[in-house]
């Protein structure tokens, strides 16, 4: 069975380490915050200018001056700090954020990522995504393996305009955990009950398949 959004977030969360500073994109990446392993703490960075982002507020905590990068109202944890957007992206561009999780439309065997623009549709902009993919040494993309129509999103060459070139090394899809290096996808794990054949069928780019592909456990 393909992973649920929650399971995808859960799988991504296993890549976390204690003491990581983490930036989570909108969508599935946001859910990762719900699956931080026990006994481990991470600190969330919000690129509009907050380190130490907390949960959504209660009615009483609601503060128009305290939002996240998705423009939702949030809170700040004890020990948080606020800073300007220039300082925030200095932090990101300078590689100080340990771990970044982003959604995408497509990735390819060269580590390219397309995530912000579909030609013909209204272009809303890249926001901070281009800065995040260029700045993060340790970045993981999470998205469905293929579209609803069965078109692979793991490609030889991204078809959509790129968000970043050669920057993605790890992908968690609803079917598999895949690494990218040497111009190939490397299948590392599969979703419970999903066959290697199905993954291969839904992967357009060249993929290396080891003899044993462990099933993820939840």
């Amino acid at each position, binding site marked *: 069975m393909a992973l649920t959004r929650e399971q995808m977030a859960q799988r991504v969360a296993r890549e976390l380490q204690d003491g990581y500073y983490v930036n989570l994109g909108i969508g599935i990446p946001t859910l990762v915050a719900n699956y931080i392993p026990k006994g481990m703490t991470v600190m969330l960075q919000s690129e509009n200018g907050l380190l130490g982002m907390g949960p959504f507020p209660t009615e009483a905590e*609601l503060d*128009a001056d305290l939002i996240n990068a998705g423009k939702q109202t*949030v809170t700040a944890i004890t020990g948080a700090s*606020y800073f*300007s957007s220039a300082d925030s992206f200095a932090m990101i561009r300078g590689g100080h954020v340990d771990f970044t999780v982003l959604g995408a439309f497509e990735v390819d065997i060269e580590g*390219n990522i397309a995530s912000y623009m579909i030609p013909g549709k209204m272009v809303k*902009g890249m926001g*901070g995504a281009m800065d995040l993919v260029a700045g993060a040494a340790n970045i993981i993309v999470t998205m469905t393996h293929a579209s609803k129509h069965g078109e692979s999103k793991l490609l030889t060459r991204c078809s959509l305009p790129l968000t970043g070139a050669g920057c993605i090394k790890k992908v968690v899809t609803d079917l598999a955990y895949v690494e990218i290096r040497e111009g190939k996808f490397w299948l590392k794990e599969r979703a419970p009950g999903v066959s290697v054949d199905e993954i291969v069928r839904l992967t357009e780019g060249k993929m290396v398949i080891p003899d044993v592909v462990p099933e993820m456990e939840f």
Partner: protein
Amino acid sequence: MAGFDKVVKNYDEALAGLQDGMTVIAGGFGLCGIPEGLIAQIRKMGTRDLTFVSNNCGVDDFGLGVLLAGKQIRKMVSSYVGENKLFEEQLLAGELEVELVPQGTLAEKMRAGGAGIPAFFTATGYGTLVGEGKEVREFDGRHYIMERSIVGDFAIVKAWKGDRYGNLVYRNTARNFNPMAATAGKITVVEVEEIVEPGELDPNEIHTPGIYVNRLIQGSFEKRIERRTLRAD
């Protein structure tokens, strides 16, 4: 210290000199930390053909969106737009031009503009549409593109507290683009929630020194929330 008293009497004085065709740098992220009264004043003045450098363009009836309603904006330089329908309509009708700039590059372009740095290199956007037509340079085995700085004829800024000398502090994530905007305007106009006397702000805790501020006005703010999100308990 009369020469350093930046407080102006009213909004007319705050934006005196703003003319058709000028470039305005605006602080704010979404609807958070935006200079509401100064935007309203530009709406009232009816100034046209403006270029706005701002991370976003508000929503239909709030933030910079109200200037779209007045067809006052010719060009937006932003990282993310289209939270409002007017924007899309005017863009498709060719009445509005948009230059999309990655958020961190936009922040840095403003910072560089204020800091006398005409250009800098960044890896952000290399190999993408953003890098097209820009100079590419390799440093230590990695590719970077050259980005130019931005300076505005005016900067409009929202701060929490400001003293009469123009020293400013911002509150929480309402800081966002405001400190860089403040440095990058030939004339910087600041709207604050509270004007205080010099000395009331701790000199160690001032986010924007008064040297960057030309005019200061006390505003009143709706502080509309774009995405009110609560947790259950």
